[in-house]
């Protein structure tokens, strides 16, 4: 893997933000809007504080962390779509760039996006609702890292599907992550789910993060079991999705569809 090729791709995507309002909105406007809407709902729910302990952290914290996962996924998938829209895939893959370097660059871009979006949301939550997510303490770091990796996994999977099925699968870039939201238990505990669905949620790393977050908010020590499950599942799923991406890439090269994506 060559760092200069990964850096080139990162720089190419950063150039896009210099003069593109819609792309800047993706980082600043939409997350901010999310926070405002959910923030007011939370303020309303605070009236029932006695019945739902830690309601602010439950909702605002969960919302910020969910956005970490969502933007991590988008960082990968939208970067790939940008190359399709620019008809640039042929330039990239006829260069020495390896598919693994392409993925590494999109992961780096996703970290930049997640960082920017998180700053916007954390500052807005502090200013509008006097909510400081860092009250969760150091446990926030492993939670957030696991969500980034879970977002990458969904991002790589979605990218493979778009590569395989072409432009008609583009809509998955925005929709795929929400398929996982009900079983991620973002805004409610896992035991709210029907019994038959709980094992499915248990197999979802994001669900362990949100369960863990709720435990910490309620004053429990860092739930290592949930963190271990989340990390283990993340490593397994990400490795599987990267392998599938390489397989799909080779299938597309064999079928000649790699050069026709987006046409």
């Amino acid at each position: 893997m060559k760092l200069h090729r990964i850096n080139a791709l990162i720089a190419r995507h950063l150039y896009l933000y210099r003069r593109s309002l819609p792309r800047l909105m993706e980082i600043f406007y939409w997350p901010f809007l999310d926070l405002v809407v959910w923030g007011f709902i939370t303020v309303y729910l605070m009236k029932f504080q006695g019945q739902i302990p830690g309601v602010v952290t439950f909702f605002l914290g969960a919302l910020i962390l969910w956005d970490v996962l969502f933007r991590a996924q988008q960082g990968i998938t939208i970067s790939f779509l940008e190359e399709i829209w620019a008809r640039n895939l042929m330039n990239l893959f006829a260069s020495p760039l390896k598919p693994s370097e392409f993925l590494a660059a999109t992961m780096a871009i996703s970290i930049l996006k997640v960082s920017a979006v998180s700053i916007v949301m954390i500052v807005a939550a502090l200013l509008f609702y006097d909510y400081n997510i860092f009250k969760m303490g150091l446990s926030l770091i492993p939670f957030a890292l696991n969500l980034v990796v879970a977002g990458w996994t969904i991002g790589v999977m979605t990218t493979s599907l778009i590569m395989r099925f072409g432009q008609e699968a583009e809509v998955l870039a925005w929709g795929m992550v929400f398929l996982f939201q009900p079983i991620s238990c973002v805004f409610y505990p896992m035991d709210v789910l029907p019994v038959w669905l709980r094992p499915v949620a248990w197999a979802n790393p994001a669900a362990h993060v949100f369960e863990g977050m709720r435990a910490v908010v309620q004053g429990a020590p860092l739930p290592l079991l949930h963190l271990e499950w989340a990390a283990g599942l993340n490593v397994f799923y990400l490795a599987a999705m990267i392998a599938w991406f390489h397989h799909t890439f080779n299938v597309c090269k064999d079928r000649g569809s790699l050069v026709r994506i987006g046409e």
Partner: protein
Amino acid sequence: MTPIVEVENLTKRFEDFTAVDGISFQIRQGEIFGVLGPNGAGKTTTIQMLLGLVTPTSGSIRMFGLDLETHREQILSQVNFSSTYISMPFALTVEENLRFVARLYGMADIKRRIDDVVKILEMEEFRNKVTRKLSSGQLTRLTLAKAILTEPKILFLDEPTASLDPDIADKIRGVLKEVRRSTGLSILYTSHNMKEMEEMSDRIIFLQRGKIVAQGTAQEIIERFGQQDLEEVFLKLAREK
């Protein structure tokens, strides 16, 4: 001397359609190698296989003495291409696009190299323009600029002058010949402009339905088919059933 490109029995089948059917050829250092043929003859698929974008069904591709399948990275760092059918990221300026390509290929002294290419292809006036706002001729010059920017040893050019006016097209041909003369660059060239093919190519292969049906210098091919020029040969071969 080892040829720059060695293609042997190259075949590409897409289900029951054979796009390229057992072709073999070699390209020598410093040679301009023309690939002629009607639409759908297999020219673009051949170039895509040479660029590692399409996997051959059978046959082998060697460049610089190395097998493309096992030495992709080493080979593609010495290769570049330009085509009427590709683009560059529209939201970036010409300079940003060239900078990106130079970094992708790990070039040193990027600014000097971009300055040189911009000067050679007379791109000064639109160097800082956003790519979206370029005319088709300017866009073609940009894709050519990105192709020669990386100082490749072989260049694959798929109808590089198709959207250019005769003046710019002539200048581009001049630039390519000059780059070839000064660097020993090899070029694989496709075009539907027969005069251009006669002027540019040292040797030509004629593809039809994926097979090579004629090869040699332009003059040899013209004499062999008893025609006046390459255009007449093209029409004769393309209309044969």
